């Protein structure tokens, strides 16, 4: 019987009080952003904010709890922005959004920092044993968001990023699930050869954790070949952004099949319009009805994208809707 699991891809908006406090403590310029060595006062604000967003998830009834990635000033580029082998330079556009991050430039051999692991340790203290979910950028997206001035070769650079992420993941405390976010697989799709390497890099990071691994591309559907290669990686689920594209995502699943588990991005992480839980449940049934496959073991219900784009109160509502939709789907299936 299918298990319906409500979750999110993390990267939450800061509570409004924390936006104010941190603006005040850190400042507004690019050299004020997180570099991994923030002092006690700033750390205390982030701890309190982390407590709050974990409580929000628990109160909403989500099945997986993320740390929230509130420190990730540079969004998915964060794991590089805190790395000693990286210089952060000018402000560059974050995909097709009105958002910006510091361009990370890799200038030396990359080595794991344990930065993400220590966030998860802190989150683990606040959550139950079996519901903690880790979030990382997928290796292809992290390579795509950064600039290489050290490795010199695209394939070598991707391999180095995969090594880095695998080492970071290896240091994680026990987690139930790992979400690897891979918007670049859609937004800047890999060419021939590159697509296979991207899949191998994902496989390497996925193998570093003893957890269910979900690879979530978004802002559209994967090209057919990219999807086919992705299925070769040893992962538990692929995520599909059904908010931005239904037809091509459905086509991929119908043509190439799917993993045993699946993640459905059905709530819009970039719009304040809050979906009805019943509507989300109906969309789950609709997707399942379109597929020739037998039932999935696990269906993750999630927003399609990160949620930092939303005002805080709307983000909270989205989480509540996802939790309720998963409960409804569970009941309907039973």
């Amino acid at each position: 019987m299918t298990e319906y699991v409500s979750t999110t891809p993390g990267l939450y908006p800061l509570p409004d009080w924390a936006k104010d406090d941190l603006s005040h403590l850190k400042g507004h310029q690019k050299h004020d952003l997180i570099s991994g060595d923030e002092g006690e006062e700033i750390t205390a604000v982030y701890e309190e904010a982390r407590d709050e967003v974990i409580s929000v998830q628990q109160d909403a009834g989500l099945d997986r709890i993320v740390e929230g990635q509130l420190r990730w000033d540079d969004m998915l580029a964060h794991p590089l922005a805190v790395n000693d082998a990286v210089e952060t330079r000018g402000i560059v556009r974050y995909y097709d959004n009105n958002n910006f991050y510091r361009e990370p430039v890799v200038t030396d051999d990359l080595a794991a920092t344990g930065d993400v692991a220590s966030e998860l340790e802190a989150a683990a203290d606040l959550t139950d044993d079996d519901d903690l979910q880790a979030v990382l950028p997928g290796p292809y997206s992290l390579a795509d968001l950064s600039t290489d001035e050290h490795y010199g070769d695209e394939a070598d650079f991707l391999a180095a990023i995969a090594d880095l992420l695998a080492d970071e993941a290896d240091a994680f405390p026990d987690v139930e699930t790992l979400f690897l976010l891979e918007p670049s697989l859609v937004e800047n799709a890999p060419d021939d050869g590159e697509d296979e390497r991207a899949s191998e890099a994902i496989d390497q990071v996925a193998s570093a954790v003893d957890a269910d691994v979900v690879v979530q591309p978004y802002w559209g559907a994967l090209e057919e070949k990219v999807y086919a290669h992705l299925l070769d990686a040893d992962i538990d689920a692929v995520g599909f952004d059904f908010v931005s594209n239904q037809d091509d995502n459905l086509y991929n699943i119908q043509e190439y099949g799917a993993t045993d588990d699946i993640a459905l991005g059905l709530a819009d992480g970039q719009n304040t319009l809050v979906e009805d839980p019943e509507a989300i449940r109906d969309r789950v049934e609709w997707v399942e009805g379109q597929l020739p496959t037998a039932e999935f073991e696990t269906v993750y219900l999630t927003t399609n994208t990160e949620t930092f784009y939303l005002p805080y109160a709307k983000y909270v509502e989205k989480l509540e809707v996802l939790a309720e939709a998963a409960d409804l789907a569970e009941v309907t299936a039973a």
Partner: protein
Amino acid sequence: MSENKDQFRPEDHENDHFLLTSVVGSYPKPKWLNRAKELYEDDEADFDEDNWKEAKDDAALVITNEHERAGLDTVVDGEMRRNEMVEFFAHRIDGYEFNGPVKVWGHNYFDKPSVVSEVEYDENWLVDEYEFTASATDRPVKVPITGPYTLASWAFNEAYEDDAELAYALADLVNEEIEKLVDAGARYIQIDEPALATTPDDHAIVGEALERIVADIPEEVRIGLHVCYGDYSRIYPEILEFPVDEFDLELANGDYEQLDVFKDPEFTADLALGVVDVHVAEVESVEQIEENIKKGLEVVPPEQLVVSPDCGLKLLPREVAYGKMENMVQAARNVEADLDAGNIDIERETPTPADD
């Protein structure tokens, strides 16, 4: 080229040539205005709605006067009454609501509004401020309005099928506002569409929105379009089809690297050329600005050239903003005199006609 530029020529203009000088819109706010705002927002301070209105009126007078002193041919109140270019209008249009700040980058946030129902015209947006400014100066007053595509793109769209439908609905409201402004005497309107630079593939949506904006607006009303900080090659020459008199473009910041984009095909509208950089807090010399103005003459003849800063000046120190305006006007007058004297000989390439 547009026929409606000469109405802005001052009666005592000393040169035969006339390069219209203007600003994009925003200008640094006097420090005391920010202090007044804090008082207004402080519940314990004895500073009410009337006091706050008076402070904004005073600031508008000061900046309008500052533009006059700099010698600008057309003036703006420096957008003293506006906090942010989307928020200001969203507060005045039925259908928008605010749910809190969202991140742009780092700890820079803005109150991105949501469109939750059909947008409708409610109170007037700019007529009062236009009438106030126009009564305080003898110079023509330019009115900048955030364009419908930007008002749509920089909001959450909960109510319309897509952003294009929302932009068209907003364009009808902008048209209504411009009709009111024209009735009040305005003859120079600038539509600001910075969002076009970030999503250049949507130029057709902006074009359709502009058609709605200018519907039934008399020919003598000059309509400009300001677009900044993007890859212009992705919207040129398509934008030449837009029903506007003038394109106001940011080019000084990139050292005119993108100038060649506009040389072929022929630039058929008026060019409001950015000749001072708003991201450099040093005042360019008159000579430097003269050279920049001459860059514009590589694209259009003097009759089609307007002189302007790259973008709004609001992030500069106020004395720097003033210095840039003063030098810009002086440089324009010098270039006019040189043109009169026949001292400027700039070859424009013969481009292929646009319809080839």
